[in-house]
């Protein structure tokens, strides 16, 4: 059961807050869509600090982070 968080166009720190809430819900994997490198790095850092695994794919100038426990 995949949870998808569309955080494109949202400014700091909203992508992180939304991703954090999705992780807390515990429905993995959590997919997070972002459109800046800043948001990508912030979400990745937060997820890794929570002990999750993060894989990132780039689609044109957007990023998809797949967060797994």
């Amino acid at each position: 059961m995949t949870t998808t968080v569309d955080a494109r166009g949202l400014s700091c720190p909203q992508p992180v807050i939304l991703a954090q809430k999705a992780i807390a819900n515990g429905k993995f994997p959590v997919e997070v869509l972002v459109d800046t490198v800043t948001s990508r790095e912030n979400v990745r850092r937060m997820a890794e600090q929570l002990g999750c695994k993060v894989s990132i794919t780039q689609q044109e100038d957007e990023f998809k982070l797949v967060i797994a426990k």
Partner: protein
Amino acid sequence: MPADFLFWAAPQSREVHLERLTKFFASRWGIILVGAIIGILGPMLQKLGNPPNMGICVACFERDIAGALGLHRANVVQYIRPEIIGFVLGSMAAALLFREFKARAGSAPIVRFVLGAFAMIGALVFLGCPWRAGFRLAGGDLTALVGILGLVGGIGTGVWFLRSGYSLGRSQKTYSAVGWILPLLMVGLLLLAIFKPVFSEGGPIFFSESGPGSLHAPLLASLGIGLLIGFLAQRTRFCTMGAVRDVILMKDFHLLSGFGALLVFAFLTNLLLDQFKLGYTAMPIAHSNLVWNILGMLLAGLAYTLAGGCPGRQLFLAGEGDGDSAIFVLGMITGAGIAHNFNLAAKADAMVDGVLKVGGPSTFGMVAVILGLVVCLAIGFTMRQKA
């Protein structure tokens, strides 16, 4: 790790080099290094001529620009500060080089303008942005601690709104030209700073002949240091508001370690340059009015948090194409005009015949801060999305 710098020796493609640099700048060591560099360069700018405990102050310098253009007529704070120009253009250079320049806009611009204006009014009641609060503290000015207390309170309030769903909505990807507008405005300012045209008798461009506006490092030094800091801050996302926000929001000390490095290295540089002077009253371009130091920074901190970045960070974001941050910057410059035209900005402590005259804002300034707090709270309460 700093050892990552060694990669330049390796024969690899440009892309790989850039990617590794990006990783380094995103690391803990990256942000600490950049905080330390800013901490050293700030006091050096003072040595080169910038006002005391004002190596870099984004709010004060934007206020000086407003004055130079004649948007206010406080004749002691008028100068086109090349540091601000450098911040935007340095960030743009970094964003272009690393392919992160991306024009975007449309996330409640009018709200960002208002937040910028009130952020400036709050900053001018304290007499500095968070950057200057750091440089004031590192120069021994203990009133900065009081301001930082207010700043933390304002950011904490903003975090509460963020947690309860506050959002200014999504920005949209847009024409590249949108992202170029503020950088080009900065190029225009640079030309005005270099050629100093006089547009009419007794008219702009104004350059202070006394007071803080008359104190400045040589143009090339200010511009060069501004460009360097803009470049590095774009890479590391250095943000003084984010530093506090991330700790309150999620116990993330990443950005705070950068601001901490700024404080430590600015303190050490001040000691070395003999610029450290410990005190609470009559400190350079500061006042010791406890309540209004707190409330001014409380307002500014809340406005920065609701807008998603400290004044410096807004310049760096504008440099990488963020049109909404550019609007915040224009809001701050407008706010500076309002603050001085309507006598809202605080007066510094003064020694009159050997007697301390404690400074602070006028009654108008006090009312403006309260009004600003009410407006910011209204923005916070009414702009929340239900999860």
